[in-house]
């Protein structure tokens, strides 16, 4: 299935845009998507950390994904 992904901050620069589409197996998890993104964009692996959010909440590695989810790449935050 296709997953639409939002990218913010430095992730937007690494991925070359604020939205991207990634093809994942059906029933893929957030952890598997993170793995796939790190392979596709190796510079994500060089960040202090990065998390995925699914539907506006931080996602655990075993969070299942569906094609309608809003997924976002969350590099280290630095608000305030």
């Amino acid at each position, binding site marked *: 299935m296709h997953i639409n992904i939002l990218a*913010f901050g430095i992730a937007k620069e690494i991925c070359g845009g604020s939205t991207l589409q990634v093809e994942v197996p059906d029933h893929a998890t957030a952890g598997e998507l993170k793995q796939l993104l790190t392979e596709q964009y190796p510079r994500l692996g060089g*960040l202090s950390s990065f998390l995925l959010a699914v539907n*506006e909440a931080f996602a655990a590695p075993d969070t299942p994904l569906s094609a309608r989810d809003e997924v*976002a790449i969350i590099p280290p935050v*630095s*608000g*305030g």
Partner: protein
Amino acid sequence: MDIDVIISDKPLDIMACVGQVTRPNAGGIDVFIGTVRDATQGKAVLRLEFEAYQSMAIREMRRIAEQAFAKWPVHAIAIHHRTGVLQIGEVAVVIAVSAAHRAAAFEACRFAIDTLKQMVPIWKKEVFEDGEVWVAAHP
């Protein structure tokens, strides 16, 4: 729970934030104001740029306020965060907490800014004379 959360690309109004938590039964209000510093680790900063994952950031800010209500006897919490380009001295964040007694106001306000900096999906880019850096991105 009396929670007011704003993300805005317009200059923040500190007194509007304080006004959101002012109550006749509140004896103390603690306010934290985060401003743009002119240097970081000795290097001159020209300006900052803040970017937010707005919908999620609003959710997370509200969740922080809810957690503070669960931990301390506070009356009202307002969290206002700025986005966009900020010049030196401009206000990036204002957090105001009112309570009957000051200890709760201080502790909840400190908790809110500490947790915001750890959890809320907002990113800050420091712009220097010779380049730009996304803060905290790299080890």
